[in-house]
């Protein structure tokens, strides 16, 4: 378990006044948010609203022009992704990224070795390390039967599950999932997000995700943040956000 997991009510992640400008375009213009342990927080908004930029600033891929990101009470603004990983931030990507030259189990073992800072060992056989832990994680995401398959040949939905297992290898306090269900069939989407939700609850992991599919958002999120043109225009429970006229205006184009 990470340092904060389980301590309900403590804030896992806080972002304050994040800004990012690309040339003349202010992609994110002052976004603040906070995530609690075990919470499923969805970040939504139309194309170009600044979701990915926001996400990449939280995940360390982009450095914000202004603002601060804190993990527990530690300022982590602009830290590289690999440092965030060691501080308990798990990450999945919109375009799946796994290690194609390894088996599914080896992918998770590599993630475990990396997270336990054991990558700089030159002698023991890597595929004998953390076998039990790796198989446990794979079982949790429903991939136990595919452990020995090469990761390069997996079906898309299974790759997403593998990525989830790898993100969990570091016992994260926070999962950042960028479009976790993109490219999946509707039934698969609901199953994957139900799985994520179950894991978030049992481990006290906070999950921040972006999503296009409104059924997934309103079915699985505890709280929803709505971005438009780089600003937060609404936040609250799914019901409240669904009813919010500003959100309806952004999505449906009707006057507020």
């Amino acid at each position, binding site marked *: 378990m990470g340092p904060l997991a389980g301590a309900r009510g403590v804030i896992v992640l806080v972002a304050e006044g994040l800004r990012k400008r690309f040339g003349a375009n202010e992609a994110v213009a002052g976004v603040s948010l906070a995530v609690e342990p075990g919470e499923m927080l969805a970040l939504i908004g139309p194309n170009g609203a600044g979701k990915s930029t926001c996400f990449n600033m939280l995940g360390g891929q982009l450095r914000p022009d202004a603002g601060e990101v804190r993990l527990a009470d530690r300022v982590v603004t602009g830290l590289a992704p690999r440092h965030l990983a060691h501080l308990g931030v*798990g990450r999945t990507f919109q375009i799946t990224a796994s290690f194609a*030259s390894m088996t599914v189990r080896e992918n998770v073992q590599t993630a475990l070795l990396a997270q336990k800072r054991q990558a700089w060992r030159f002698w023991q056989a890597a595929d004998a390390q953390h076998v039990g832990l790796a198989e446990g994680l794979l079982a949790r995401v429903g991939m136990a039967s595919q452990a020995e398959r090469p990761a390069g040949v997996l079906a898309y939905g299974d790759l997403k599950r593998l990525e989830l297992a790898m*993100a969990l290898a570091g016992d994260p306090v926070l999962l950042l999932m960028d479009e976790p269900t993109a490219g999946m069939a509707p039934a698969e989407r609901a199953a994957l997000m139900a799985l994520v939700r179950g894991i978030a609850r049992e481990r006290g992991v906070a999950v921040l995700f972006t999503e296009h599919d409104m059924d997934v958002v309103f079915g699985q999120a505890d709280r929803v943040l709505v971005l438009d043109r780089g600003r937060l225009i609404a936040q609250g429970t799914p019901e409240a956000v669904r009813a919010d006229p500003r959100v309806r205006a952004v999505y449906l184009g009707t006057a507020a």
Partner: protein
Amino acid sequence: MDLIFLQLLTGLAGASTLFLVAAGLTVIFGVTRVVNFSHGSLYMLGAFIAWSLLSRLPREPEYFVLGVLGAAVATAAIGAVLEVVLLRRIYRAPELLQLLATFGVVLVVQDVALWIWGAVDLSLSRPRWLRGAVEIAGLRFPFYDLVLIVVGPAVLGGLLLLFHRTRWGLLVRAATQDRDMVAALGVDQRVLFTSVFALGAGLAGLGGALALPQGSANLNMDLSVIAEAFVVVVVGGMGSLGGAFLAALLIGVLQAFGIALVPKITLVLVFLVMAAVLVVRPHGLLGKPQAMARGEVEALAPIRQAGPALQLLGAVALVLAILAPFVAGPYLLSVLTEAAVAVLFAASLHVMMGPGGMASFGHAAWFGVGAYAAAFAAKGLGAEMAVGLLLAPFAAGGLALLVGAFVVRMSGVYLAMLTLAFAQIAWAVAFQWVEVTGGDNGVLGVWPDSWAADKPTMYWLALLLCVGGALVLRRALFAPFGFALRATRDSALRAEAIGLDAHRLRLAAFVLAGAGAGLSGAVFAYAKGSVFPTYMAIPHSVDALVMVLLGGVQTMAGPVVGAVTFTVLQSWLLMGDFWRIKLGLLIIALVLAFPTGIAGAAAAAWDRWRGRAA
């Protein structure tokens, strides 16, 4: 003051020919995405053909122009033939194999040129008008330098007009942006590619022809110019004509002043400038980040531990190797010693090339550093062999740490070119620093201690150190380090997200590869009793590449199979005259026949056979 001015002029003149070669290289790369190693050979052919024409034509200026243009056109025609016969077949092959195939062409052309023009340097007896000088502001400038200085910008202007004012140029620029889109628009790509290649070849030929009056046509000019052209193209930015021009000016002037002021370290100076430019602008002066190269989306075959059958085969081979001295004669034993050295040389390259995903075209540099370190220990310190064998991997690994800190930031062909440029510099240092290295004469008398002086003992020692070293490297590749390294290659994004430091892992692989090659170099030095600059030369780097690619990059047994096969081939088939043409044709044939290497092809065949049997 006058000297500075004259030197500047010399630099600008040199920059012009350099630009012509680099422009051809960069235009060809832009459209076909092939890094044409044989571009230097086309330059050399341009010079030889120009010599043949100009030494027969009358000596008036108009015939000189005619001869130079004739050489350029002839080279362009040779380029077109080369494209149709060879390159067209390998556009879809992995980048590295393309480079290797074009190196095969380098070898073939060398022997063809040797056969036609002989081994003697051919210089032109220059007519008086060419030797003249022009007086400007009280200073006398060599007339021909001024001609060259004008040619560079003129050709740049002509090319820019061609690319921006003609329909053909429009297509070339479009293809540089997005090949598939141009194909989808119904343009006949084959004609476009052939004509672009011919243009690039013609530019190289023109460069060679224009360089002739100031030097000579000789068999060394291909590899020396290609290293410089790589530097220019990388500094300027791959695919950028303007960048190539700026970089050629920079490098040309730098070389001219370097030779005048600090002749010994000119090449080091060039490398440092290149390093500085790339630190500030990783894609070169005017280069843009490359659109995703095909290599990055290539499916990566899973790497498996050898099964019991293969392990047994390996063990049997090892036992046979250990017993060999009881049956083998002295010649066979020396071939086997070389094979053992080659195994570690190839295995060390494989560490960075396979799991590390970093192809090196200058691996011989580390081999040579190790060999010279051993020579230094033996002759300079008068130390026992053990000292030399210990010093070598640390010397090579230490230098690899310095160079690697900079090189591993790059990827793909940039990285390959940088390693080549560095190796060329290491070679030049060994060649020029006569007081320490003995220059071309090498260091002789690097003999093993008396206990290892007989052939069988030296062979066993080589086997122990080199095969043992290769097994240690293999062990590291299946250890957490190897998995982490492979992770950074498979997906840098994911590797960082799980907490891996990709830069340090790649650097460690680079250092490990350097240290392994250094040890193999030291063993070789003691086995042969001598060390020469050729240990570091480009052909030796290519030997390592051929071994790894011959065996297959994506299999762990590959480098071993490749090293042994290559050494045996070299010892029996490739001896005597015209070995280059045989080796070159062999490389080309192998690239065409086995794009995944011998071990790769064998593994695939084995899987098919098992699939049928099951």
